[in-house]
């Protein structure tokens, strides 16, 4: 019989479908796992309300965990929860380093309220590490990213919105 921690470890093998360099636990999408005699309950939360990847993420979790749950004669249940609201503060320093290495500028801290009020703090280019970058658009390739450009190396890149 696997413990809740064992199930959580298995969830760390499920990549985020849009940002495969991070798994769904590192992304902060998995909010908890409970196991009983008859079921394994996984709670997930969306990064954005309309994130179209949520169904794919739930499917990926089921595909990975269902066969193992069946071995223990348990039902796998994936539940969508909205509270507490997802925040980029849940990304660990290690996860942020992986994002940068992947070419996505990681978010700063949400305690820096400039993120929402308009005066964007400087964002470091993930390629050449220059801080001479500029915002191209508040909205990028997915709901959770904004679009930037580096004025030194000319690289266009995504920046994880800080929420």
């Amino acid at each position: 019989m696997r413990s809740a921690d064992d199930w959580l470890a298995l969830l760390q093998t499920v990549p985020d479908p849009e940002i495969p360099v991070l798994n769904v636990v590192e992304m902060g999408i998995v909010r908890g796992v409970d196991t009983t005699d008859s079921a394994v309950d996984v709670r997930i939360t969306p990064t954005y309300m309309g994130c179209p990847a949520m169904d794919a993420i739930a499917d990926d979790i089921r595909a990975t965990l269902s066969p193992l749950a069946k071995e223990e004669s348990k039902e796998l249940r994936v539940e969508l929860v909205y509270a507490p609201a997802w925040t980029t503060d849940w990304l660990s320093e290690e996860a942020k380093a992986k994002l940068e290495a992947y070419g996505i500028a990681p978010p700063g801290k949400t305690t820096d309220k400039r993120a929402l009020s308009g005066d964007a703090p400087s964002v470091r280019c993930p390629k050449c590490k220059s801080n001479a970058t500029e915002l191209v658009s508040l909205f990028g390739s997915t709901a959770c990213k904004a679009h930037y450009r580096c004025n030194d190396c000319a690289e266009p890149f995504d920046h994880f919105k800080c929420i």
Partner: protein
Amino acid sequence: MNARFEYLLRLGDDALILGQQLGLWTGHGPVLEEDIALTNIGLDQIGQARAWLTLAGKAEGAGRDEDKLAYFRDQSGFRNALLCERPNGHFGDTIVRQFLFDAYAVCLHAALSGSSDAEMAAIARKSAKESAYHLRHSRAWMVRLGDGTEESHSKVQQSLNDLLPYAGDLFHSDAVTEQAAGEGWGADPAAFRPAWDTAVDEMCAEACLTRPESVPEQVGGREGRHTEQLSFLLAEMQVLPRTYPDAQW
């Protein structure tokens, strides 16, 4: 009357109709970045709509889910404010509609974050982050267009004159909002109208726009009395599920 159901329909329908309209910009934005921005905002609205309509279906207790509510109600069953169904028009029209709505949504989500209903508060707190981001974008465009060229200024001023009369519907108070606020699970929008008015005035000052005085307000959306535009919008949005009910793919 099921006030909770009615109230949740208003929240869900505002987001659904606005989200559907923003989706129509796909492939038609003036520049690629705006194409992506408008549809990203639309996606957030649809996400919020799904959450509110799912709750509405539960409150009704008749077994209708988000899809049944979105696709199998007729025009008179929709409770969105008239502003949300105003046509996309040109880019300036869409931006003005979005700004007027975003400024309202920021106030609404802040108020609902303190809802006595845990599920409503959770959705509102989540949505509040998104509406703040949307407002930052639509407000920046109001300033850029209003304080831009002579042509952009005159166009967006006209959009503001045209759309402001429909914004009053957002603040419609009646027995539903009275019960919602009285019981602590919802909010009476009249309570945050002054904050919205201030947000509009401050934007106008910064964007060199003139807020029209004594606007005749159009209301009716909260009671299912809509403009012609909504029927065309619903026809396009609903045709597929109505033609093939219960289809799966």
